[in-house]
Every structure is written in C-alpha cells, then in structure tokens.
C-alpha cells in the first residue's frame, strides 16, 4: 500500500484542532473584552443608574444608628449616596442632602463617588450638576466632561426645611393678659405623632428626627415691656414628653446676629433645631422648646405655647430643578 494519504490524516487532525480552538476562542471573546464594549452605551447606562440612585433613593448610612446619611461625620460611613427625601418619594430631593452632596470638603472626588454612587469595577468619572429653575443657579461636582460621555437628565424638586413664624404684629395671643404676672417663658411644642402621620405627602412631611426645625420670632418689640429697652434670653429648655433633656444641636440668632446664651434681643429671634444621630425622641413623643427670659426686670411679655404642626408651620414652595449626570 502506498503511504500517500498519511499526510491527509495529519492534516485533518491539525485542522480539527485548529477549528475547535477557533470556536472556543470566538466563544470566549465577549467575556474577555467585556470592559471594552461600546463605551457610549455603557456610559449612558451607568449615567441612567446614577440618576436613579440620586433622585429616587434616600441613600444609606453604614450604621442603623443614623436615620439618614447626611448626619454621619465620616464619608466612609455612607454606603449609598441618594438625595431623595425618603423611600418612595421619587423626584423630591432633600435640601440637607443636596447641600451635603454639593458642598466641598465632605465627599472626596472621585473616590467616594466611585464607591458610593457609581459602583462597578471600572473607574468611571462623573459630573453631577443641579440647575435651579427659578434663579438658574448651578451647583456641580466633578470636572467638566470630555467629548465622549454618557448623560441623563432628571427633573426634580428640592424640598426646603419647614419653619414656624411667630410675628409680634400678628400673634397677639402670646401677649400676657393684663394684670397677670408674665412668667418669662414661651414654649413651642412639636407633636411627633401628628407630624409623622403617614398620609401626609412626602413633599410636605416634617420629620423632626431627620429634618431641621426652624422657629422665628419676628417683631419681638411688640412683646416687649414698654419700660424695658431689651429682653435677655437666659435659657433654652428642650424637653421630651415634658422631661428636660440635654440637647445641644441647635443654633440661635438674636436680632440677626449669631448669639450664645445669655443674649439680649429687641427685635427678632431665630432658632434652628438640628437633627442628631440616635434622636432622643420616639415617634409618639412631644418635643418642647422653651425660651426662658430673664425676669429681673420682667422685660418680655411673651407667654403661652405655640404648636409646631402642619397648620402653623410653613414649608417654602419646593424649587424645581434639573439634575444632570454625566459619566465617562
């Protein structure tokens, strides 16, 4: 027998091996090149995801001690940066979160943003811009995007904290009745169970555990004893269910200037109660804030208790804004 055909078996085996390995390699390509797939589409998808996290998620702190992430002091304790007011309140952003997110110095770009906002193994860069509709002011994080980037645009509203106004010209019910000795105390009561009513729309809800409470006394001169040039605020008592507690997370402005106790005032008082981690109040408590004035001489004629509830407190109209996310 001739051995002419031996080479063909050789060829067939070699060719088979080649074809098999070719098929294997071809099947593996999509996986090995996963990260170099058409980048624009990938950037758009990541930008979409980032937009959803920012506008529809309230974010998440590392420890359940903090009700919301904007209260943590270490950016490393923020697992996810979301700007929404609460779960299920898409498109409604919290002013506190927005301030924290855009203020320089808290989050470090790009490390914190990659870890808690963009996610993924690929080191994406991002630029987040918030443009207010009313005054066209722009706040932004991250460098300007290069030529090729993925983008998404979301329409949102930014919800401002509530405030309670006591106006000397309007609220005469807090004036001491004639022939009565003024007790030099004026209280504001915050009833938690009323504020936390779940049927209130998230645009209007006030939660003292996570939101700022602001109290402003205007035209204080109307409450001033005619003979006294000014009143002296000596103490602010903060109480939970009637029992005074130690609570120092507040700020005080008297007559338009930041002030400490005791302080003199003639015209206005502005008081801000900030939320703290592990809030001392439970959902059924009443928070009492009592302003105590010096009674020697009894300069203030203010008395009584005002309620911080949905009837008396005012919420500024939420501002519409455009949130634009660019990812590359």
């Amino acid at each position, binding site marked *: 027998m001739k051995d002419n055909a031996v080479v063909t078996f050789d060829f067939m085996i070699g060719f088979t091996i080649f074809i098999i390995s*070719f098929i294997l390699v*071809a099947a593996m*390509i*999509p996986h090995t*090149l996963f990260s*170099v*797939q*058409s980048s624009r*589409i*990938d950037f*758009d*998808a990541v930008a*979409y995801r980032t937009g959803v996290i920012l506008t529809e998620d309230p974010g998440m702190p590392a420890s359940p001690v903090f009700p919301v992430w904007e209260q943590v002091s270490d950016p490393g304790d923020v697992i996810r940066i979301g700007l929404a007011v609460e779960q299920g309140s*898409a498109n409604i952003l919290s002013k506190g979160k927005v301030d924290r997110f855009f203020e320089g110095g808290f989050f470090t770009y790009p490390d914190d943003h990659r870890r808690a906002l963009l996610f993924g193994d690929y080191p994406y860069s991002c630029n987040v811009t918030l443009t207010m509709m009313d005054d066209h002011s722009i706040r932004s994080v991250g460098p300007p995007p290069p030529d090729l980037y993925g983008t998404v645009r979301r329409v949102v509203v930014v919800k401002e904290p509530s405030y309670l106004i006591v106006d000397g010209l309007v609220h005469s019910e807090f004036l001491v009745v004639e022939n009565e000795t003024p007790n030099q105390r004026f209280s504001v009561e915050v009833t938690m169970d009323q504020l936390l009513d779940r*049927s209130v729309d998230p645009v209007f809800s006030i939660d003292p555990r996570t939101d700022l409470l602001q109290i402003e006394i205007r035209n204080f001169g109307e409450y001033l004893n005619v003979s006294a040039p000014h009143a002296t605020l000596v103490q602010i008592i903060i109480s939970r269910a009637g029992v005074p507690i130690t609570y120092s997370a507040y700020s005080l402005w008297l007559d338009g200037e930041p002030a400490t106790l005791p302080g003199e005032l003639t015209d206005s008082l502005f008081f801000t109660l900030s939320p703290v981690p592990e809030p001392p109040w439970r959902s059924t408590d009443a928070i009492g804030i009592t302003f105590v004035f010096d009674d020697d001489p009894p300069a203030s004629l203010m008395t009584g208790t005002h309620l911080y509830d949905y009837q008396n407190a005012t919420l500024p109209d939420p501002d519409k804004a455009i949130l634009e996310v660019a990812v590359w």
Partner: protein
Amino acid sequence: MAGMNDNGQWIVLMGFLISIALLFLMVIINQATLVGQTTAEGVLEFPKYEIRDLRTEVIRSFREDTLNSALYQDIRVLSLKRNHAIVSLGSSPMEGLDATMVTIRFNNGVTVYEETLLV
C-alpha cells in the same frame, strides 16, 4: 499542498489573518450594541412611571374616599385602550382598624404588578 503552486503564501496568510480579525471585530461589535439594546429596552418596557402614577392616584382617591364605580371604569378602560394594560382594583375594610385593604393589580403583558396595602 499537493500539486499546488506555493508562491504567494504570505499573501494568503495575511488574507486569512485579516479575515479572522474582521470576524472577531464583528462578534465584538455585535455583542456591544446588544448590551445597550437590552439596557434601553429593559427600561423602556418596564412601566415604572405608569405603575407609580396609578398607585399614587389610587391611594389618594381611597384616602379621600372619592373612588366610585365611574372613576374605576375610567381607569380600567383608559388603561386598557391607551396604555394597553389591564388594571384591577379591590378593597375590603379591615375589621377593627380604621383602614381599608386595597389591592392594585397591573398587567401589560410584559410586567405584572400586584400590591396589597393598607390605606
């Protein structure tokens, strides 16, 4: 190979290489655009806003006690004819509680959503 003129082997080899490279590129591009396709379709086909909107309206009308059979018929017919989705609402008062158990069902053939909640 047998009886073959073996001039120009480099040209043949290069031709092979280039054609294989072209094949690779084709496979990659094909896969890459598919990724964008599925992402976009996933979002477009998922009626997130429709469900959210319906949910808000239903909860609000139960809370304000404004839902009647005519409004329900409006929701049902308009959903079916305009949004191509079957919507079904149910409610039952809770014994001993000042609340109503509301069931919302939504089905547009791609997404099925069902929720039971207390209003």
